[in-house]
C-alpha cells in the first residue's frame, strides 16, 4: 500500500515541474536571445515544437518516459540518463559523507545531551545543534572554506579531486564516478587521501545541518525511553548506567532516527544544490541550477523525476525498515 504511494507522488511532482517549466520560457530564447532577431528566434522555437499546445507536449513527454526515453538535454546535447548517472553518483557520494558526518556527530552527542538533560553539556550541545540548522549551508560553507582552506590551508578549496589524482584515476581506468571507490582502485594511498581531503569540507557543511537534526531527535527519544518503565526495570536490576544508555535506551530511539534520516533525503537534496555550488562539487543539485538557468526542460524534468523517485523510495524503505526493527510499528 505504502509502495503504491510512490506513483502519485512522482506523478504530481513531474506534472508540477512540467507546467512550471513551460511557464518560465523556452531554452532557445535563453541561449540565443541576445544574438538573433525575433523572427529568427520564433522560427527556431517553432521548428523545435515549443509553441505547440502544452497538453500535446505533456502527452509526448509522458509517453516518452513510459517507454524509458528520457530524451537528450537541450542545452548541451547529452542523454539525460547519462547526466543522471554521472551527476547522481557525485551527489550520492556527497550525501553519503554528509549522512556519515551527521550520524557520527549527531547520535553520540544526542545521547550525551539526553543523558545530561537540562545540565550544562545539554545546554551547550543543544545551542550548537540549533546553530547548526539555523545556519544556511552556503554561509557555513563559506566560513569553513575561509578558515580551513584560505587561512589554515588544511583542505583544498573546492572540487572533488586534484588534477594529479584525476589523471591517476584515468590511468587506472577507474571511472565509476564515485571518487573514493575510484581512488581505492588506483591503489595509491595519496590519491585516497586527496579525495578524502576534498570531501571533508563539503561533507561537514552539509552534514552539520543534518547532525543538528539528529542530535535533537536522539536527545528527545533518549529522554523518552529513559523515562519509561522498561529502562527503570533494567536500572533496578542493577544494569550499569553507560550500558543502560547504550543497550536499553538506545534501541527504541532508533526508529524515529531512521524515519527522520529518510525524511532528511529531501532536505539533503536541497542542501546539496547550495553545497555543490559553494564547493564546486558537480552533482545533480549543481547541474539542476545550471539547467534551470538554460530553461533546459528535458534535463530539469529528468533530474526532478530522479529526485522524486529517490525521495519516495527512501521514505518507503524507511517504513519497511522501521517495521522490521519494531514489529509494533503500524505501517
Amino acid at each position, binding site marked *: 500500500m505504502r509502495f503504491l504511494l510512490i506513483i502519485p*507522488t512522482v506523478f504530481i*511532482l513531474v506534472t508540477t515541474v512540467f507546467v512550471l517549466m513551460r511557464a*518560465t520560457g523556452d531554452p532557445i530564447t535563453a541561449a540565443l536571445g541576445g544574438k538573433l532577431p525575433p523572427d529568427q528566434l520564433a522560427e527556431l522555437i517553432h521548428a523545435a515544437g515549443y509553441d505547440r499546445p502544452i497538453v500535446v507536449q505533456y502527452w509526448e513527454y509522458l509517453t516518452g518516459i513510459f517507454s524509458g526515453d528520457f530524451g537528450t538535454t537541450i542545452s548541451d546535447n547529452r542523454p539525460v540518463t547519462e547526466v543522471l548517472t554521472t551527476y547522481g553518483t557525485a551527489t550520492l557520494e556527497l550525501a553519503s559523507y554528509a549522512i556519515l558526518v551527521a550520524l557520527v556527530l549527531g547520535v553520540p552527542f544526542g545521547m550525551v545531551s539526553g543523558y545530561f538533560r537540562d545540565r550544562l553539556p545539554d545546554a551547550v550541545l543543544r545551542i550548537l545543534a540549533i546553530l547548526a540548522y*539555523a545556519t*544556511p549551508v552556503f554561509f557555513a560553507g563559506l566560513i569553513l572554506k575561509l578558515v580551513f582552506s584560505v587561512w589554515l590551508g588544511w583542505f583544498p578549496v573546492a572540487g572533488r579531486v586534484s588534477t594529479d589524482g584525476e589523471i591517476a584515476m584515468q590511468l587506472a581506468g577507474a571511472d565509476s564516478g564515485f571518487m573514493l571507490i575510484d581512488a581505492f582502485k588506483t591503489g595509491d594511498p595519496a590519491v585516497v587521501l586527496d579525495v578524502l581531503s576534498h570531501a571533508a569540507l563539503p561533507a561537514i557543511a552539509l552534514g552539520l545541518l543534518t547532525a543538528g537534526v539528529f542530535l535533537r531527535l536522539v536527545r528527545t527519544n533518549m529522554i523518552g525511553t529513559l523515562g519509561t518503565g522498561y529502562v527503570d526495570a533494567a536500572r533496578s536490576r542493577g544494569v550499569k548506567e553507560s550500558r543502560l544508555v547504550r543497550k536499553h535506551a538506545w534501541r527504541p530511539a532508533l526508529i*524515529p532516527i531512521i524515519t527522520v534520516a529518510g*525524511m532528511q533525503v529531501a532536505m539533503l537534496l536541497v542542501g546539496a*544544490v547550495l553545497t555543490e*555550488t559553494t564547493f564546486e562539487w558537480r552533482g545533480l543539485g549543481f547541474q539542476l541550477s545550471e539547467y534551470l538557468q538554460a530553461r533546459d526542460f528535458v534535463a530539469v524534468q529528468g533530474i526532478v523525476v530522479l529526485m522524486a523517485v529517490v525521495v519516495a523510495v527512501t521514505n518507503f524503505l524507511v517504513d519497511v525498515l522501521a517495521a522490521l526493527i519494531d514489529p509494533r510499528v503500524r505501517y
Partner: protein
Amino acid sequence: MTSGEITSVGTAGAAPEHVAGRGAWFKKLPVVHQVRQSVGLQRGMLIAGLVLTTVFVLVAVFAPLLAPYGWSQLRSGDGVAFGAQQPPSAEHWFGTTVGGYDVLSRVVWGAQTSLLVVIVAVAASIVVGVLLGLVSGYFGGWLDRVLVVIADAIYAFPSLLLAILLAIVISGGQSSMWGGILAAALSITVVFVPQYFRVVRAEVVRIKAEAFVDSARVLGTGHWRIMTRHVLRNSTRTLPLIVTLNASEAILTLAGLGFLGFGIEPTAAAEWGYDLQRSLADVTSGIWWTALFPGLAIVLAAMGMTLMGESLNDLADPRLRSRARSGQVAGAVAATSVEADASDPENPASAEHSEENPKGGDA
C-alpha cells in the same frame, strides 16, 4: 480559558513575534504562558529566542530610523561616493560592499524584507493549511484521501527548487521586491501547508468522533462552529511551534534564492542572500566584512525563531518539559494545558512534532 484564546491564536499565527512587542497583547499570547511555565535551560532558550526575534522585528520595523543610509544609496548627502569595498570605518561601521553600498544599512533594511516574507509565508500557510485541514477532515471520503496523498507528495518536494520555479513564474522574471518576497513566501507556503493540514485534519477527525459533538448538534449548535472552535483551541499547542519553523524556513529560503541569483534586485530592496552571494569573491581576497554581517543576520534571525520553536516543542511535550521544582509551576502547567476534553496526558501530537521539526533546518 475563554474564547479570547481563539482570536489570539489567529493573530499569533499571523505574526506572533510582530505582536510580541506590544504590551496590551502580550499577556494573552500563548508564548507568554510558556515563558512563565518554563524553567532553567528551557526558559533560557525560550527567552533567548524571544529576545533575538524581538530584536529582529524591531530592527525591521524601525529600519528607516536605524539605518544610516538607504539600501541602494551610493553616495552621502554631500554627493561624495562611498566607494566600493571600503573597510569598516566611522562613516561605515560595517564597511561597504563590492557595489559600493553601506553594509550596515543593507543588513538593517534586509531585516524588513525578511520580516515581510515571514509574515506573508506564515499567513498564507495558516489560512490554506487550516482551511484544507478542516475541509478534508470534516468531509472525509475521496476528497480527504486525495488531499492526504497530495500532502505526502509535496512533503517530499525540494522546497528550494519550487521556490526557484515560482520566483520566475510569479514575477514574470522581474526581480522586483514583491516578486522576490512572494516567490520565497509562497514556495514555503506550499511546503508548509501539509504540516498545518496534518495537524488540523487529525484534530478534526478525532473531535468528529467525540460524543460532545453529537450533543452539541442536539442543542442546535452548528457543526462548523464546533469544529473551528474546538479544533483551533486544541491546536494552540501545536501551531506556534509550526509557525516558528515556518518562519525560519521562510528566512532561509529567501536567502537561498538570493544566493542562487533568483532573488531581489539590489536597488529594489536589501536582501541578505544576495549580498552574501556578491561577497563570495571578496572572501578569498581577505575582505571579510561584506560576507560576515549579512551571514550573521541570517543566522541570528533564523536562530531566534528556531530557539523559540524548540522550547515551545519541549514545553508542549510532557516528557520533555523540564521537571519543575515541585508544585511551583504546576499551576501554570494546568493553566496552559488546553481544554480538558482535548488534553491527553501523553500528548498524542508530540511524537508527530518531533518528526516534523527536522524540516525546520532546511537550506
